[in-house]
């Protein structure tokens, strides 16, 4: 079946891309300003100001290198990492050597995933109807207002939206709490902040897609056949205009995951995004490489899912 072959081909491309990404990331890390020694010292002295002799320092460094597999040439390091990565074993991280990275990721992944799914659902469930309404009531105040807010929503980055929401809803109106991820009340702002951008983009795109379709000849044919506005919009216009929407959901996902990085940081949501930020600021290289890997893989797999859905919706694809 053409579809199975397509999926396999895509998985292969994803695999290749991820491998390349990991290799590049790993090599880049290798060139980064070396602070291994500082970290080694820190770990050894557990916070105390250390007064180690040069020999003691050497021993520490050796131990450190062994523990993190750094005592082999670069290419072997990359190879070791890759081997284990696809079995989801990532070894210890610099900042928290007692908890293997894969455990941290396992704990945090559901959080980010929930945030992403909720936001995307919001974006799609609200964005599409908004776009449709704007198109049907084209050039009226409804259209102008919706499109104006859509424009703003698609330009302003997620973190800015988050901050503005906090300003209005927490500081001024005192309706919602500023951080956390336990209660639904805490979840409202992060989900909206992450989802608003994609929502705006989807709404604008839906509007232009629908307007484009409504201008097509086959819509005129449908009217000539004696269709009602309702029947024509539902049976011809909507179905045809929804298919292109699926194509922009893909890039929106990447956008969305980037948003989670910021929003988790802002609202103290314990997900992968927060992990990534911590890793970056603490120079925790293994963690950094790994969280990049996981986040990228998630985006690529979700994109694949979207493409499969698209193939189901558009009958023309199946016959290629």
């Amino acid at each position, binding site marked *: 079946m053409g579809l199975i072959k397509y999926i396999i081909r895509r998985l292969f491309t994803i695999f290749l891309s991820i491998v390349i990404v990991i290799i590049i990331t790993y090599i880049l890390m290798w060139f980064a300003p070396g602070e291994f020694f500082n970290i080694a010292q820190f770990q050894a002295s557990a916070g105390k100001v250390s007064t180690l002799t040069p020999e003691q320092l050497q021993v520490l460094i050796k131990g450190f290198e062994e523990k993190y597999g750094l005592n082999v040439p670069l290419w072997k390091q990359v190879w070791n990492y890759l081997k284990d990565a696809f079995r989801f074993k990532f070894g210890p991280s610099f900042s928290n050597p007692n908890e293997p990275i894969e455990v941290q990721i396992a704990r945090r992944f559901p959080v980010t995933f929930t945030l992403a799914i909720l936001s995307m659902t919001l974006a799609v469930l609200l964005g599409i109807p908004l776009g449709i309404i704007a198109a049907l009531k084209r050039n009226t105040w409804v259209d102008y207002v919706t499109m104006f807010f859509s424009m703003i929503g698609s330009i302003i980055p997620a973190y800015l939206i988050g901050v503005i929401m906090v300003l209005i809803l927490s500081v001024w109106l005192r309706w919602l709490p500023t951080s956390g991820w336990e209660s639904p009340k805490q979840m409202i702002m992060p989900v909206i902040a992450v989802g608003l951008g994609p929502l705006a983009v989807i709404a604008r795109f839906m509007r232009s897609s629908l307007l484009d379709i409504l201008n097509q000849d086959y819509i005129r044919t449908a009217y000539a056949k004696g269709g009602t506005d309702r029947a024509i919009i539902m049976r011809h216009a909507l179905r045809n205009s929804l298919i292109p929407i699926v194509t922009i959901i893909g890039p929106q996902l990447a956008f969305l995951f*980037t948003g989670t*990085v910021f929003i988790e940081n802002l609202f103290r949501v314990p997900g992968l995004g927060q992990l990534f930020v911590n890793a970056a600021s603490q120079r925790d290289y293994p963690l950094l490489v790994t969280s*990049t890997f996981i986040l990228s893989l998630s985006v690529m797999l979700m994109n694949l899912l979207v493409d499969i859905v698209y193939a189901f919706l558009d009958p023309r694809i199946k016959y290629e």
Partner: protein
Amino acid sequence: MEVAISQKVKRVSYWSAAWRRFNRNKMAVAGLIYITIIIIVSIFTPWIAPYPYDEPHYAHTFEKPSAKFWWGTDDLGRDMFSRNLYAMRNALLVGFGSQIVVLIIGVIIGSIAGFRGGFIDTLLMRITDIMYAFPTFLFNVILVTVMGRGLFTILVAVGLTGWAGMARLVRGMVMYLKHADFVEAARALGAKESYIIRKYILPNMLGPIIVSLAFGIPNGIWIEAGLALIGMGVRPPMPSWGNMIGAGIGYIMGFPHMVIFPVLTFALTLLAFTYVGDGLRDALNPRSEV
């Protein structure tokens, strides 16, 4: 060389017609005015700013806006207005600077791919496909980790992660123009390849390139601010909208002014560039009409 002369005449009227179309878009014009003002302000910031951006006034910390400190002070008593000016300046530097990098890399790679085709072309297409679906911000963070935190390195990092779109655009145009009818005609009349590139291909590519750059600037700005927000941007005390907001968040309940002003100027600047970008796109490409 009559062909060249008539081409020149066409070019002049193309740009002036585009300028006319641009002017009809009020929001775009407003955006352009705003941008011109902030560019001028940014150039003269060291002379305009009432205080240096790193000068603390320990007796006047957390002050609300007043006559002395127009936009209030932050946790170290530094003047928010001055810091905002410098933040804006940094943002513009990264915004414009990154696009120069994007332009150089993108045009070079795109032209080669478009002209030569073959292996480089397929390679470019694969790379842009990957980058299209990849959350590039992550890569920006990694690059900054490697290259260090500084205005220049950030600018380069943004450029390095953002050239793919430009390259694709250039490649597409070069491929189309290589075989376009009017180019074939010039070739048939005996024009040299370099002449064709100069007089025919390049002028026709300018429009979409300009639009792409116009949209790339706000992209660079938000990445710069985003990096600063998570602690990977320019090093304090150098201000950035990102680290001003990041620092202000902690005090947002009690002293929202620390956050409101950067948020407002940041948002306005992004909007202005986007409206101008939209205006440019409609002006230079009259077909887009919904």
